């Protein structure tokens, strides 16, 4: 995390003085983008850098499910399972993805290529069901489209 401090310094300049604890969230995002997850040493380093008590960083990490404490596969498949997506077949998409990848939601394939997650509303109910591949939305998902998608990424 130490190599990110110059970036953190630039972020700090955008906040009023004395609001360093507000930097916890953007710094954690940056750390996760860099490492793929937030490691214990990142927490210790961040507490030291921001002069924030350890427990405050732990609270933020446990509150937001998007912040991870462990690494995931190369490709992160996130399937929305809220009402609109469920009504348009999300459960089938999830079941099919599980079968294709041989994992349950929350697990990573043995070869480390895929992690499958189910998530709350992705805000794209008009094109339900929706699946996210890393940062990209794949809308109006069908089992055929999912097969093609996984084949293309394997």
């Amino acid at each position, binding site marked *: 995390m130490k190599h990110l401090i110059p970036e953190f310094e630039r972020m700090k300049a955008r906040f009023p003085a004395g609001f360093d604890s507000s930097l916890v969230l953007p710094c954690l995002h940056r750390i996760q983008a860099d490492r793929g997850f937030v490691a214990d040493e990142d927490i210790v380093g961040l507490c030291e850098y921001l002069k924030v*008590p*350890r*427990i*405050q960083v*732990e*609270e933020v990490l*446990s*509150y937001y499910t998007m912040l991870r404490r462990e690494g995931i596969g190369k490709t992160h498949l996130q399937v929305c399972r809220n009402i609109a997506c469920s009504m348009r077949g999300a459960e089938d998409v999830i079941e099919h993805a599980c079968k294709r990848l041989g994992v349950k939601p929350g697990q990573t394939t043995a070869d480390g290529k895929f992690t499958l997650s189910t998530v709350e509303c992705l805000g794209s109910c008009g094109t339900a069901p929706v699946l996210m591949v890393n940062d990209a939305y794949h809308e109006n998902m069908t089992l055929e489209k999912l097969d093609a998608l996984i084949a293309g990424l394997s």
Partner: protein
Amino acid sequence: MPRLTIDGREIEAKAGQTVMQAARDHGIFIPYFCWHPNLSVPGNCRICVVGVAEKDGGEWVEIACNMPAAEGMVVFTASEKVKARRKATMEFITLNHPVDCGICDKAGECTLQDYHFEYNGAASVSRDAKTHATKHFDLSERIVLDNERCIQCTRCVRFTREISMSNGLGMLDRGDHSIVRPSPDGAFAKDAYSDNVIDLCPVGALLAKDFLHKARVWYLKATPSVCPGCERGCGVNLWHRKDEWKLRSPRQAARNEGIDRVTPIENPAVNGPWVCNKARDLPRLFGRVRATGPLFKGAPAPCEAAVLEARALIAEAKRPVAVVSSWASNEELAAFKAAFGSRFALVAKRDHEPQPGEVVQDDLLIRADKNPNAAGVRAVLGECGTEVPKDADLVLVWGEGFDFRAVPAGAKIVFLNAFLAPENGHADVFLPLSIQTERSGHYTNFAGVTSRFERCFALPPGVLHAEELFGSLVGNGRGA
């Protein structure tokens, strides 16, 4: 200064006060869980809802803890609307509570229990299974946490952030999975004020391991006392068995004469509403093995003969020195002065010194002098010496913590002490004294504030009160 009406009573609030503060100042009760007069206002429990009259005759509800008192406001603390809202809030707060009052130490002094009787009283209307959480979680070596009983008021978390400043606790996760946890860096275990969270907890989630399943609180009575742990002299309640609830089994009889737990007495002039963990450990300090009979050079002696021998030694001495206890009460010091006048050269003793690992001094309460009445010694006896003069031929040692190597060779020793110690047997005459819990008296703290402690227990057989003893140590020879 805004004037407002609460339940038909017109009151004047101080500038900047909330409705909750103004109501309390005027003796009007509004219930609360998460609010605390000495902590920040999170407004998360919603039980302090009150009604506020609207111009058109209607009424809206708002939490009293976070609502500024305003001019002309008309507030109702128990209107039908407020009662309905409060009942719904209680239903919500107890939604996942295990209602295991029968085996909970907090029962009898639990805010949740009291409010349930007062504001709801009905069985749960929920058809869903209760969520489960960790039970018997070791929060520290001193405190056990039951997360199912917790109502997430966050008083304990805020205490460690705003008062003790250890940042030892936090609220992890979200929603009905929220859970109080200690910081992984161990900050809570090092917090010298950690046990205050037990009193702060409005439910039975945080409990003292020392008191766990020891007694129902209604078996106990609280005797007001003063913590002798340092020269702050915090007000404490010493809780011990009521006479009508004494344990009858001989195996447990010793517990009738012991302190079960210690809680703070709020005193703004001395300790505010808090005490440090040392006060909570007073049962161990007072529970040490006692000296129960007089000794002549280690051999048991009858009490009368021992007193006469001590009196003779004092009468015969040419250059007697008294080493005075800074754990003595003002009354004992006055009795000493009345009995002996200027018979002794005086040395003031620190009976207790900081122990390894103990916080020596901080900005909140803890003071470096670990004795309760050094100021009282100065006030009653004047400035005393710090070392025993080399030419002394008799040393009267009063209390613990004296290094007997400081006694000049050949000088006689009269030793007054409450606890069993190897030094007791080295004295020419040893007399066993009472401890603080067996008498009443006053201590004067470092700031000059005098606080009274009351007697909890009867005097054990063979033990003497210093206050009464000193009078019989004056006189001539061994004759009566």
